[in-house]
């Protein structure tokens, strides 16, 4: 996108290079107005972003205390005794790990099937539009559907049962399951797009070596699109980290991570908890915690997580490929074909 034939013109109208005739001063008024609007929009975009980032930075730095990161929240009306948000941080990490662990294999498998098999065609087309629909379904709809599903008796082992005998339906399992649906379309589309860009001769080369389709997918195609899978997964993680509705409805948004009893990790996963998003929600005036300073601090930590993930995505999708021609999908694909054969 940097290569543009038309010459760059300085805002004042002085041509930097090329035809001197196309100076902005000579444009009709309407065109000049449009040009100015563009600059205004661009500057406004930068300003809004800067305002948000600075605002959160100031609030975050002024309210974030290291102790908040290591204390569990306590149900106290006195904010100095109400603890920090250790549990929400752990909850966010746990939920993200669970959601990704469910979504990544299924997403990659779906993409591989859609791109390499897709038989019968009608099924492929239906699956495709189904996944696309999921991408557009609001997460609050997924959340209340999840509550319905996980409250069923036969899924009681994924959450807890009240003394009265009915299934609670709120747990890390329930929330993670629905979160995986949130991440799934992103993983499917980025993997699939990358698979589609691998030239046919890579596959042909592999087949010519006597490899089956399955082996080709597993050994050649998937390894060569690994960065795309990774960036899809990271995007998915971003959506999981940022979602609140599913946490509020399906994780219970309880103050502390509360196990359901039994084996340690399993107890936690069957139990309820909170994440940073739900912590921000309940500590904003909307919830009853009503501790805006803690909400700001938690939102700042949440934002830092998002920034970190963003850096990873940028790295995965731009960095190596732009700088290193050796990493082009084609080269990688070819190298991958060679590897099993030479071994």
């Amino acid at each position: 996108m940097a290569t543009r034939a038309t010459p760059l013109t300085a805002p004042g109208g002085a041509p930097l290079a090329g035809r001197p005739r196309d100076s902005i001063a000579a444009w009709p008024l309407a065109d000049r107005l449009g040009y100015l609007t563009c600059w205004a929009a661009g500057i406004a975009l930068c300003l809004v972003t800067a305002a948000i980032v600075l605002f959160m930075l100031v609030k975050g730095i002024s309210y974030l205390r290291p102790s908040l990161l290591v204390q569990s929240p306590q149900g106290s009306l006195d904010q100095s005794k109400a603890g920090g948000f250790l549990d929400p941080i752990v909850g966010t990490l746990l939920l993200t790990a669970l959601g990704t662990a469910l979504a990544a294999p299924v997403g990659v498998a779906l993409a591989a099937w859609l791109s390499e098999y897709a038989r019968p065609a009608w099924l492929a087309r239906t699956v495709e539009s189904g996944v696309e629909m999921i991408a557009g379904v609001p997460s609050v709809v997924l959340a209340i559907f999840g509550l319905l599903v996980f409250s069923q008796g036969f899924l009681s082992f994924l959450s807890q049962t009240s003394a009265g005998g009915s299934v609670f339906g709120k747990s890390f399992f329930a929330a993670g399951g629905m979160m995986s649906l949130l991440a799934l379309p992103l993983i499917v589309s980025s993997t699939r797009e990358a698979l589609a860009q691998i030239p046919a001769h890579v596959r042909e080369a592999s087949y010519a070596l006597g490899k089956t389709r399955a082996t080709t997918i597993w050994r050649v195609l998937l390894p060569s699109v690994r960065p795309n899978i990774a960036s899809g997964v990271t995007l998915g993680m971003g959506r999981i980290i940022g979602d609140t509705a599913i946490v509020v409805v399906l994780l219970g948004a309880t103050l502390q991570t509360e196990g359901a009893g039994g084996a340690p990790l399993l107890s936690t996963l069957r139990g309820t908890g909170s994440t940073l998003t739900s912590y921000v929600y309940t500590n904003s005036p909307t919830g009853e915690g009503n501790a805006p300073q803690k909400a700001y601090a938690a939102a700042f930590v949440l934002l830092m997580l998002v920034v970190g993930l963003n850096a990873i995505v940028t790295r995965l999708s731009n960095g190596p490929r732009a700088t290193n021609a050796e990493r082009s999908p084609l080269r990688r694909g070819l190298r991958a074909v060679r590897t099993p054969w030479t071994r």
Partner: protein
Amino acid sequence: MHAAPAGESSGARPRSPAPARSGTQSDRRTERVLGALAAGVLGLIALMTITVFAKAWPSFSHNGLTGWFQSGGDVDQQLREMLTSGTQGGHPTYHLRAWPLLWGTILTTGLAVLIGIVFSTFAAIFIVEFAPAPVRRVIEPIVRLLGGVPSVVYGLIGILAIAPWVNHHLLSESRKSSVEYLVQLAGSNLSTATLILTVMITPIMVAIVSSSLAAVPGPWTEGSAALGVNRWRTIWRISLRTARPAIIAAAVLATARALGEAIMLSMVSGGRGFAANPIDGITFLFEPVRPLAATIVQNSEALSAPSLGRTLYAMAAVLMVSAALLSLAGWAAKQPLKRYGIRA
């Protein structure tokens, strides 16, 4: 077993020839496993659609499809009555006229997408055509970051910083008293909600529009420039026209996100099932609303109430239908782009 045809017809690109040992056991098993997985995911989606609609049915059938979408009475009062109805046996009441909620959804989404599309088209032209290289290098990651900010953070900023500001500086006493018999104005209102929603959906649109502007084939614009057309006209007539499907696709995606936004809107939209009235002039912009998704999340505690729960599922069903229609529209919008080999 059926032999794999050399180059099946499904899929957009021509298939490679089938592998030499396509008939091996393991290969067929892999295909079957993957296919079954795909069918499983599809089954889950179908199950979701069916259960949500089955749950929602009583709400639609009691009100009638036309009744459900009409206006009439105070929708908050109707929801309130549903909360406690049917708990003592007897017939639960489902009476609902959901128009104020729908209108709130249409207003917030429509205004935000409308403002957003104009703004992000200009911003995208700026990024692609006019921004100096260093600015461009900074702005791209910034846009991506803005798109990744969780909605609850936007909600927090909205309720603690923007709503009080709007209340102090934009709402005069006379404006408040002009509609005080109908509704009360506060910092959380239609304009606050629309403003934040616009900021939320702009990054998606900027990203899509700018990548499609950048993908406009160079010779097209060069040709125009060679004819002596100035740069702005070239962008306006050639680049933007080529990118039009991408702009539509961007609007569709942004609409989907705005429709489904629940948390942020439940925090700053005013939280009242009130049909903001355009006749009120400027005041209209400061009237409270409550879109569908926000209504669901605010009442999510009450999902176990017999009739209110089903009504909430009915709202979810409406949102699902809209999402499906939107993804159809998005698919249709992308078609003309493919003609030029541009992937949106």
